[in-house]
């Protein structure tokens, strides 16, 4: 078990170097001098350009800049933005908010999705099953920004149930509406997967055996059917995490959530290399860690799965 974790973590190292290098070179390769952007339509004097290029190491060759950056990162310093803010501070400020938003979305997704999938699976072909199919299809076919704008307009502005934007402090109550929108993204998959899985599990011999032993539905459904149906849903959750973070960039913008996605969006607009690379690197690391955690969860859900050295 320990060895498995260590091996998985070691596998993360090339992922880290590869992703930083690719992102760094992509940002580097976009044409144009970031210094000129700071001056708007004014053309700065050559001495000014030189002074600012030196300040941000823009006068160094590509590989030098990459290694300077890597050196900093390995010392725990994620660099400073062109505006002079520490990226560490920015991430420390924004990441907890995004994590809270993603967590809330996952909880909503699982609670609603699994429940709806379970009922649909148990009453296959019934009214509830068909209505759920229709609703989830509608939601799944809408882009997230449409969903977000519509939700903001109806529940935030017209009905006034929620504040239309989140803003300072990002209290849980304000995060609820964006989290519901974010959950909607993947809700349909959770429902369909749970439903299919529940139908399949229900036909297993051990379920009939459980009923045959005289166990009540209240015992068989959660312990025998649901638990054994959760494996595909769990795998999906890991892949889903990436979608949540990407979706968060859009959702955070619309609901003005002071999170990582919002910050990344602004950094890309500014062409702020150190900030973009650092944020994306951290996202990659989080993604790798979440995947490892999910893999470990399999063993808990299904004792037949064992980790080899």
């Amino acid at each position, binding site marked *: 078990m320990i060895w498995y974790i260590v091996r998985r973590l070691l596998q993360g190292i090339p992922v880290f170097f590869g992703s930083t290098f690719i992102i760094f070179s992509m940002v580097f390769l*976009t*044409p*144009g*001098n*970031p210094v*000129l*952007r*700071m*001056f*708007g*339509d*004014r*053309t*700065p*004097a050559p*001495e*000014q350009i*030189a*002074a*600012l290029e*030196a*300040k941000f190491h823009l006068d160094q060759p590509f590989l030098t800049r990459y290694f300077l950056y890597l050196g900093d990162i390995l010392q725990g310093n994620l660099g400073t933005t*062109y*505006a*002079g*803010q520490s990226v560490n*501070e*920015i991430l420390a*400020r*924004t990441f907890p908010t995004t994590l809270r938003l993603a967590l809330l979305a996952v909880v909503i997704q699982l609670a609603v999705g699994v429940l709806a999938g379970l009922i649909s699976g148990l009453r296959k072909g019934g009214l509830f099953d068909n209505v759920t199919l229709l609703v989830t299809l509608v939601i799944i076919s809408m882009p997230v920004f449409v969903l977000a*704008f519509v939700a*903001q*307009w109806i529940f*935030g*502005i017209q009905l*006034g149930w929620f*504040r*239309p*934007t989140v*803003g*300072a*402090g990002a209290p849980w109550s304000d995060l609820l509406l964006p989290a519901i929108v974010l959950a909607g993204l993947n809700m349909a998959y959770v429902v369909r997967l749970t439903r299919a899985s529940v139908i399949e599990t229900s036909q297993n011999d051990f379920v009939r055996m459980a009923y045959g032993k005289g166990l009540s539905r209240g015992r068989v459904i959660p312990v025998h059917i649901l638990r054994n149906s959760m494996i595909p849903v769990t795998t999906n959750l890991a892949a889903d995490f990436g979608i949540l973070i990407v979706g968060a960039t859009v959702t*955070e*913008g*619309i*609901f*003005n959530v*002071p999170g990582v996605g*919002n*910050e990344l*969006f*602004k950094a890309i*607009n*500014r*062409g702020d290399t150190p900030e973009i690379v650092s944020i994306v690197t951290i996202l990659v690391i989080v993604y790798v860690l979440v995947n490892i955690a999910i893999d470990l969860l399999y063993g808990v859900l299904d004792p037949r799965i064992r980790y080899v050295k």
Partner: protein
Amino acid sequence: MRISRIAAAAGGVAIATALVLSGCATDNGGNNGGGSASTGVVNVAWSEPENPLIPANTNEVNGGQVLNQLFAGLVYYKADGSWDYDAAESIESDDFINWTIKLKPDQKFSDGTPVTAESFVKAWQWAASNPDLLNQWWFIDAIAFKGGTYDGGENTLALDVVDDTTFTVELADARADFPVALGYTVFFPLPDAFFDDPDAFGDAPIGNGPYKLGKDGWVHGESLSLVPNDTYTGPRKAQNGGLNFKVYATLDAAYADLLSDNVDIVDSVPTSQLATFKDDLGDRAVEQATAVFQSFTIQPTLEHFGYDEEGKLRRAAISHAIDRKEITDVIFQGTRTPAEDFTSPVIAGFDPSSIEGSDVLDYDVAKAKELWAQADKISPWSGTFQLAYNADGGHQEWVDATVNSIKNSLGIDAVGLPYPDFKGLRTEVNDRTIKAAFRTGWQFDFPSDANILGALYVTGSGSNDADYSNPEFDKLFRAGLASPTQEEQSKNFNEAQKYLFEDLPAIPLWYGAVTAGYSKLVEDVEYGWDSWPLLYQVTKSE
């Protein structure tokens, strides 16, 4: 050149623009003459500044707007673009080169230290000696150097402290309108605390203005709070209980909050809402002309477009070929007005009808075809007319409309040429390698035509992207700068514009306007010539 706000964080100068349909926003025009101050805290939609809050290093509107509340310059601007003394008692000169500036006595920074002549002189000298500051050029362009040449040292500008409240400035050229420029953010004073730790200061600035940083200060990425500064005794006394600048990632989010009164002041309505914002907000919608000029520029290195006879014919033909009225009506819902000159209607001295040749901006297909045909006789045209723009700034619609207008009028191929981002476009413009016309814009820094004409068209000036050089224009421009009265200055400037209409280094398109709104909770909201709300006079009851 100020870089505009949230939309343009997405790429330089996506400056808002529009027209003067409804005038001012409020019933009593804002100036309630020191009447009863309200106590509510006004929430202002805002976006995180890109730089530390240091006057000499702030050239975009978000930082500038906060600095304007935190600091008092020598003069301040009223809503109509006229100016009056703020920290200064008098600014005088006999020859418009040597100026003597006297401060009002007993002024204090919010940390209790006195505002002296030294506070200004040291701040300006520091700015001039640091080339990595975004506004350094303001000082080395305008002010003369000690010993005649720039030495980069800490005492390079020709500034002298006479006594605690008096200092002298020697300018490089005679400028009668120097006091007008002094209200711009870069000329604000700095307290001693700044020089002890510039980095800490940029995060928590200490000023001499109507407001100071509140208890929570600047919470990065979320908000910045200001409270009235008791030590400020100038004319811009705060009429509210404070300002809370709320960070928004998008204009749409800010607008959504405005509709539910969660934010009080939104100084730019998102493009998606332009068609409906007046219905949404009623008399709380603001649409007002502002000092923004939009154009596209053609570098003389572009084939067929030099400043020779052929080039001038082609530039004039292109200008005649654009239906500015139609484009402003359709694309901008009438929120912008077609340009009539190279300045702005909200700046004193605007009189396009007096300028010879300004009819080159009239839409006239026959004339355009005729001029183009004349140019073809000199050297036949082949290829495509391209208009470059940054795709991250929301320009595609009007660029497409403009090139279509040119295409239909002249019967030539004309297309928009998108660049992925602003820096890519500016780099090619700066290197003079761009092989197309390109969009340009100017938001006035201070209310004087000297600002735009001097920066864009004088030989060798900093933003002269068109490499324009005309001794006649330069002469009239300098004569205008040295003119003792506004009338004389405007006469010279307008005469100088005659040469711009002849040579068309840039093709004027339209003037900007502010399209904004405010919540039900505030009153006395007034927007100035610079498209900023006069925040100190906004009132809000608790």
